[in-house]
């Protein structure tokens, strides 16, 4: 007998996992892909990386060359077929922080085309960020993460459940300078479906745009002004709300929202729904981390609190039953019908005030609701962004801030467990110069 084949479509993957298992002292899979083979002892960071992309079917070429003293990675294609340029590019990305990278290409038509494409993609990724503006002076690195796995939960009551899951993300940090000022900012894309990730080029451009807009910031005068939290940081507001209605803080009596069920916490137009079963959403799950079934819930209806967030332990402590929130929430959808609008409309509603795009420090006290955090963003005049601001502090009390929400934008950020647009609060204390 010459060979055993389980399934024709799986032969390459099967062969690779067998090879890795048999040679685990020498090689391993990359975290990102089971088609990228790395040496198991990472190379010295000063050594220029060497990798090769090639089709399989010629084993032990080329994965046999991966190991100390020769290649650092092999990107593997199907039988006699070059891996796609996209996959080779992923391989190159692994070594981007290192001292350069040599890509070896076998001289077959497909290998040459895909190798050239990978090189173009790698150059594009760096160039799109670096060339956007001459004030962009450096990249502080980019990273790509990919995860696929199977979550299984079992307990002594005989429950044994599980589901497969995946998550991919790409991020990029850019540095810009103008005069004495140097700023840093980032952009990212995340999705459960690899094919729906934003392109490396767009992420690079977005990071550049962000960092350029921050150059030459000013501070503003101390006073009380309306504050708009941009969609990508507005989830922090809801995060504090989550902490305040979480069972752990409630039974310890350390929340400003004790005995608040049914109370009007937000304005009447505000609704928050939890939908744990949205396909491809980032916080979807069939059961929580204690195996409790998740289900659609209304958290806030017409401004009033409908439920606490309980685990079985905190529920017992409170004499209630679990709501399936062990391990966190499951996709919140924030809705402010009639009090919403795209980002530009939100700026118009803000009129003159502060747009916050970054928060620093942990000055939030869930026990009494006091809120005080370092911030940066933009000063807005008559609905138009006027100039960047930094080194300011914004303060208030969460209970007042919740009640003071004037609008929630329809510029929803889908990249997290809370799908919210930008949040406009009527008035907060700003401390500047």
């Amino acid at each position: 007998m010459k060979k055993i084949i389980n399934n024709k479509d799986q032969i390459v993957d099967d062969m690779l996992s067998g090879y890795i298992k048999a040679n685990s002292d020498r090689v391993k899979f990359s975290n990102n892909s089971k088609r990228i083979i790395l040496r198991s002892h990472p190379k010295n960071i000063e050594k220029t990386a060497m990798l090769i992309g090639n089709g399989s079917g010629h084993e032990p070429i080329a994965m046999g060359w991966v190991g100390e003293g020769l290649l650092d990675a092999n990107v593997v294609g199907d039988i006699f077929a070059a891996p796609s340029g996209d996959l080779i590019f992923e391989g190159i990305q692994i070594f981007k922080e290192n001292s350069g990278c040599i890509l070896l290409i076998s001289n077959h038509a497909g290998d040459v085309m895909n190798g050239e494409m990978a090189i173009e993609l790698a150059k594009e990724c760096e160039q799109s960020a670096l060339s956007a503006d001459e004030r962009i002076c450096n990249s502080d690195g980019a990273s790509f993460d990919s995860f696929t796995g199977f979550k299984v939960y079992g307990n002594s009551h005989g429950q044994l459940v599980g589901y497969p899951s995946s998550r991919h993300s790409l991020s990029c940090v850019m540095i810009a300078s103008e005069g004495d000022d140097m700023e840093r900012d980032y952009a990212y894309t995340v999705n459960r479906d690899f094919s729906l990730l934003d392109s490396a080029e767009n992420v690079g451009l977005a990071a550049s745009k962000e960092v350029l807009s921050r150059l030459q910031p000013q501070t503003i005068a101390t006073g009380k002004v309306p504050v708009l939290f941009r969609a990508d940081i507005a989830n922090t507001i809801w995060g504090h709300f989550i902490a305040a209605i979480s069972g752990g803080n409630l039974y310890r009596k350390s929340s400003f929202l004790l005995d608040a069920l049914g109370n009007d916490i937000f304005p009447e137009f505000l609704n928050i729904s939890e939908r744990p079963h949205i396909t491809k959403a980032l916080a979807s799950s069939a059961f929580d981390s204690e195996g409790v079934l998740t289900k659609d819930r209304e958290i806030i209806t017409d401004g009033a609190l409908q439920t606490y967030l309980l685990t079985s332990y905190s529920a017992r402590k409170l004499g209630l039953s679990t709501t399936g929130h062990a391990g966190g929430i499951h996709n919140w959808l924030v809705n402010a019908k009639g009090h919403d609008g795209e980002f530009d409309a939100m700026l118009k509603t803000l009129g003159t005030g502060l747009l916050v795009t970054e928060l620093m420090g942990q000055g939030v006290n869930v026990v009494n609701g006091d809120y005080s955090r370092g911030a940066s963003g933009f000063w807005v005049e008559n609905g138009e962004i006027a100039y960047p601001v930094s080194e300011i502090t914004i303060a208030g009390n969460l209970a007042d801030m919740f009640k003071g929400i004037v609008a929630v934008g329809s510029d929803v950020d889908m990249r997290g467990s809370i799908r919210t647009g930008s949040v406009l609060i009527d008035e907060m204390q700003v401390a500047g110069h």
Partner: protein
Amino acid sequence: MDEYIRRLVSEYSQLQYFIILDIVKKPSVDIAEISINLSSKDGASINISDFVSIINKINSDYIELDKLDQLVGDGDHGSTIYKGITVAKQLYLNNLTSPLDETMAIISKQMRIEMGGASGILMSIFFDESGKIDKSNLNSSIIDIFEKSIDKIMKRGKVKAGDKSILDIYIPVLNFLKKNSDFQFKKNEINEILSLSLAKTKEMEAQVGRAKFLENRGLGFIDPGAKSTEIILREYFESLL
């Protein structure tokens, strides 16, 4: 579950068609709805029975394509293109509500990843471009799709007309489209051009790819990539015109 998936694959085998058909996309069509459309032979909303899908065709032809590839290549072209088309179909289903050009860009990228090799990177180009079809400007947008595809294939593959490649199908078709402003009424002629162009690859000596090493021993055999391209374009025009 297995049976269900098998049934899905066969029921949705016409889906490749939707990619081309669905120039103006319905805002939201769910899987159940499509399944009804497909199974009803009288076709309430789309007359499916009129259309033989690319994937159906590839499905029935891929073994033949593999055999063809055994003569001049490494014998897997049919399986490779079948894998690509199957992925295209699944992605199409997953992205029904996005604009067509975005969907096709996603499909093209994933086909490239799944198929790999020279065929993945080159054949996915037409799928990407075909998402840019413009219903209000049908003729010129189709010509544009062909021109851009050919240009990109030439650059990426470093290949020209007469090299015995997929270009030897695209180029004669483009020439015909450009010469006939009323080409939408000439489906039969386009089909003839497709058959003729394919047959012509028999007389060519491959200048690119693995088949190049056969030198004149490849004479008398059609190019497998040209064959699958011929199938795809035949089905493309069948649905479009």
